[in-house]
């Protein structure tokens, strides 16, 4: 029982990270139907920016988090302008390969400039542990930070998407791009904004991971990127609550699987669940089934 509770806390933290990354995937997919493979790399850049700011400039946790989110959102917008905008009318596969080339470029450019070796993230949060139930459950302050910040960011995102004008425009573009354009919505601007928000969330996830696991390296974005994408698809890609649900679901499953003896297969199980879910509900667990019209 204690172990289960402990794993629940760990799963919640890991799930928060996945959920933050998955949100960016899902938003971009919802708007331009592109699997943005470079998204995992934005998360990696976010971690490195956080690392640089805290190590070399001595910034605290919150300033580092916010500046990293800003820098990542700028990077996301830049990538969209340079790489994806010219591809908007070409085939899906061409767009997908462009995304992969951007991802490779970010990975290996970072590797070239920041050296391929693993860096140690400084301890910017005081390492306090709270213990419950006579010490059988340990709640790290870092866990609280991660879960709290994720919750705040998600509420903020929900507010932006549902209560602001640009959020309304985002929803309109995701439903029908051409109709939205005819209604006077500046589609380019909305897409740019979507990339900015999604990338900011990924940047936040990067800094949080750095703080939580203490190590970062240039290839750290590849696997969590794929996993977060799996999470987005599990929940139903293009649906914002779906990404959050998928992220937590995947984080929980993974933690439970590794806790109960299957740690080497945890990645395989994530993908097996993905395939099973796709077979039963191709639009994801929270997705609506759409009928194909002839």
């Amino acid at each position, binding site marked *: 029982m204690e172990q289960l509770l402990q794993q629940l806390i760990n799963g919640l933290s890991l799930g928060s990270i996945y959920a933050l990354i998955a949100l960016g995937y899902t938003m971009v997919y919802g708007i331009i139907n592109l*699997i943005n493979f470079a998204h995992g790399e934005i998360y990696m850049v976010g971690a490195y920016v956080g690392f640089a700011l805290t190590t070399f400039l001595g910034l605290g946790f919150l300033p580092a988090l916010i500046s990293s989110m800003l820098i990542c959102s700028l990077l996301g917008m830049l990538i969209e302008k340079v790489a994806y905008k010219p591809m908007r009318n070409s*085939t899906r596969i061409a767009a997908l390969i462009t995304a992969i080339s951007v991802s*490779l*470029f970010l990975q290996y450019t970072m590797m070239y400039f920041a050296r391929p070796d693993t860096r140690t993230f400084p301890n910017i949060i005081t390492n306090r542990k709270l213990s419950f139930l006579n010490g059988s459950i340990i709640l790290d302050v870092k866990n609280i930070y991660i879960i709290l910040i994720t919750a705040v960011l998600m509420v903020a995102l929900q507010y932006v998407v549902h209560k602001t004008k640009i959020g309304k425009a985002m929803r309109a573009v995701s439903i029908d791009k051409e109709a939205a354009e005819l209604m006077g919505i500046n589609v380019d601007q909305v897409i740019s904004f979507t990339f900015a928000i999604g990338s900011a969330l990924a940047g936040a996830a990067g800094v949080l991971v750095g703080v939580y696991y203490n190590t970062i390296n240039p290839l750290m974005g590849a696997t969590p990127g794929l996993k977060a994408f799996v999470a987005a698809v599990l929940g139903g890609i293009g649906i914002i609550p779906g990404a959050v649900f998928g992220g937590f679901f995947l984080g929980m499953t993974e933690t439970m699987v590794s806790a109960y003896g299957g740690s*080497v297969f945890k990645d*395989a199980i994530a993908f097996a669940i993905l395939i099973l879910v*796709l*077979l039963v509900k191709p639009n994801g667990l929270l997705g609506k089934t759409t009928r194909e019209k002839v």
Partner: protein
Amino acid sequence: MKRLSRKQIMIIIGLLAFYAVTNFMINKNIIDSYLQLNMIVIGINIILAVSLNLITGFTGQFSLGHAAFMSIGAYTSAILTANFGQPFILSIVLSGAAAAIAGILIGVPTLRLKGDYLAIATLGFGEIVRILALNIDYIGGAIGFNDIPQYTNWTWTFILTAATIVLIYNFINSYHGRACAAIREDEIAAEIMGVNATYYKVLAFAMGAFFAGIAGALYANYFYFIKPDSFGFMKSIDILVIVVFGGMKSIAGSIVGAIVLTIISSFLQGIPELRMIIYSLILFGIMIYRPTGLIGDDKFIIGKKKRRSI
């Protein structure tokens, strides 16, 4: 039996002449071992690209797990030749068969999915195969499979590459190939016209997997050593890049793409730290300036889709 047309005879003579010349040059050491290595890699890449083109280009099923079939073939061949001492020809056939069975097993359930969802499912399949291979001790796990006898040479590579191209070319120009093309253009319309879409999608998938398995066998028996991470997601992407770079729906494109990209990447081996950066920039440039590929012609489809959306 139908008599061969003049064009076919010319092609056969051309192939034989090409083989005779290259083989002569290898025997006389005009082609050194480094060049020969690249020729064999090109052959393997052609098989992989043409077989993926059958699935993705001609049948329109977006697969991101092609390397998994290659790895199944590679491991099958490695086990058969190294552990059981079977002859190479048998292990090639069985490697292809093993990959094709895997293709059917994964194809029957997942090919109901469409577009990006199929891509994700095949990606997941590829990762599952890789992780399983990492954790099976019999085939070496993460350390890799060592001491595979080196049976692959230029003759094997040339024969199998030529056979793959000829077989797939004949398939796509047959009744069955036209059924596949119909599914690509519009699955519902094809089904209404009486094409059994599931059957043809699985057939194309299994055929593609078969040839990928053969490529895997060639690879394993050339490099002595295989490890699961050589057949990961990036390998699948590399194959897809060849197909898209050469041009979807074009076998000639896949061949040219495999040759050009293999040469580019072998030149880039010289600057290891910048290799992937330059590779990604080349990829990006190709996609921006020539998204339909070198020999591809997607204009017709794009035009049609645009008209529909208005």
